[in-house]
């Protein structure tokens, strides 16, 4: 008889019609961004373009490169899954293409996390999902 895993599950990513392609890409190990066909600006979701108002987009493979804009370290738990990971960082990455990605920085000593740290996005399993996480480059 197998042991029952009683650890809490990670809260699911919120998939919408506009960002569904992004999450499908992540599941396949691809980091995709939605590019505006009118002005070329990038976004994480296929929604109206903030730069020009255009509504037509193509999903393209992005560089996966960026730098840390800011980050925080949770010292308390707001959720049963994340309680097991305290202290943990959450960061905002400014991608080279422009959009800002909220994610976690991994493979780094907490003391080495800083604003301006160059990172790249890799797709890693997280529970039953795949997460685009940042690692130093």
């Amino acid at each position, binding site marked *: 008889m197998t042991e029952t895993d009683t650890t809490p599950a*990670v*809260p*699911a*990513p*919120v998939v919408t019609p506009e*960002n569904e392609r992004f999450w499908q890409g992540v599941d396949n190990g691809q980091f995709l961004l939605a590019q505006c066909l009118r002005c070329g600006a990038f*976004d*994480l979701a296929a929604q109206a373009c*903030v730069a020009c108002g255009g509504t037509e987009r193509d999903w393209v493979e992005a560089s996966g490169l960026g730098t840390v*804009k*800011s*980050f*925080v*370290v*949770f*010292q*308390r*738990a*707001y*959720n049963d899954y*994340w309680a097991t*990971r305290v*202290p*943990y960082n*959450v960061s*905002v990455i400014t991608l080279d293409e422009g*959009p*800002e*990605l*909220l*994610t*976690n920085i991994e493979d780094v000593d907490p003391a080495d996390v800083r*604003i301006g740290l160059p990172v790249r996005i890799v797709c890693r399993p*997280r529970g039953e*999902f795949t*997460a685009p996480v940042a690692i130093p480059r």
Partner: protein
Amino acid sequence: MGKYAIAALGVTQQGKLPGSTSEGLAAEAVDLALTDAGLPRRDVDGYIFQPGIGGQNNGRAATRSALGTGVVFEMQSGGATAILALAAAIGLLESGACRYVAIAHGTNARSRQVNVGGGKRSARDPGAFFGMFSPAARAAMATRSYFARYGRESKDLGEIAVALRRHGELRPDAAMYGRSMALSDHQDSPFVVEPIRKYDACLITDGGAALVVTTTERARDLDATPVLIEGIGATHSTGGRYFGAHEWGDADITLGASATSAFESAGMSLSDIDVFEFYDAFTILVAQQLEAYGLCGPGEAADWIRDGNFRYDSPKPCNTSGTEHSWSYLQGFTHLSEAVRQLRGQAGPTQVDHPRTALVTGIGTTDAGNSHATAILTVQ
């Protein structure tokens, strides 16, 4: 502007009120407002309410207060709601739909021990997959950016926490009455979401507040001194373009635009303001607003406060009740009610000397980003 006024104000006891309900507190505040102005309850034909933190519904307060309401609706734009509700009330009045509009807020978040940022609902937010929870975490993102940009550190924000407590400490109606705070207390308080400490965040309290808006002409026939609404401005960030987090990173652009808009609609400038009530859910917001509104230079908020400004008895008095850090957390109603009291001379131990013009702000988080609103109020 100046055609419409706040004709009545009702504020309940604030702090820890076991057994209280948000509807009960909103209704109590409405009743206090009616008594304040000598306004018959059946004359109130508009009721706008903002639910208390944790999503408690205050709509039933209109029934409990037996108002003559023809219009009842809920508004939600976080801390900006109170000021935006003034604008909405003006719309109801100008359109002829209403003659007296009550605006109310009640919360028993303290007694219910609401866990802001936690709970089952927050697990369904886009940021939850990455462990991003709570307004404190959003403020922490902006705080780290602020520290890096201006070479500032935690004790600079501590000056703001101490300055707010200094006012709340003096006010018998404040949750923190008689409870002083030194900078070392702030520095010793634990990190909640680093770099935000416990004392960088506001209180969670029980309490209610209500106002009645009508034409200045009708307000003059009532018992309380009318507080005229001279100007309103608002902006909303386009932040939150990434999953789940709304950073106040564009603060200097977003906040400043709201101020400009309010000053323009009032035909006034910064030098006309006698007292300021800045939205203070987090110390970083106070720093950002002091700078964006031009009271001091970028990155200089802590120095400005160390120089003796901000105090209720200084030439630039701010947050005179201790507001959300030290008086009570009624979102934007905290600052709006204090501004009204200051202009009426009802602020007690922290009364500014005969202020004629007050500036009030509100900041909130919506699903679209961050809201910011500004109101300029006067007495004649």
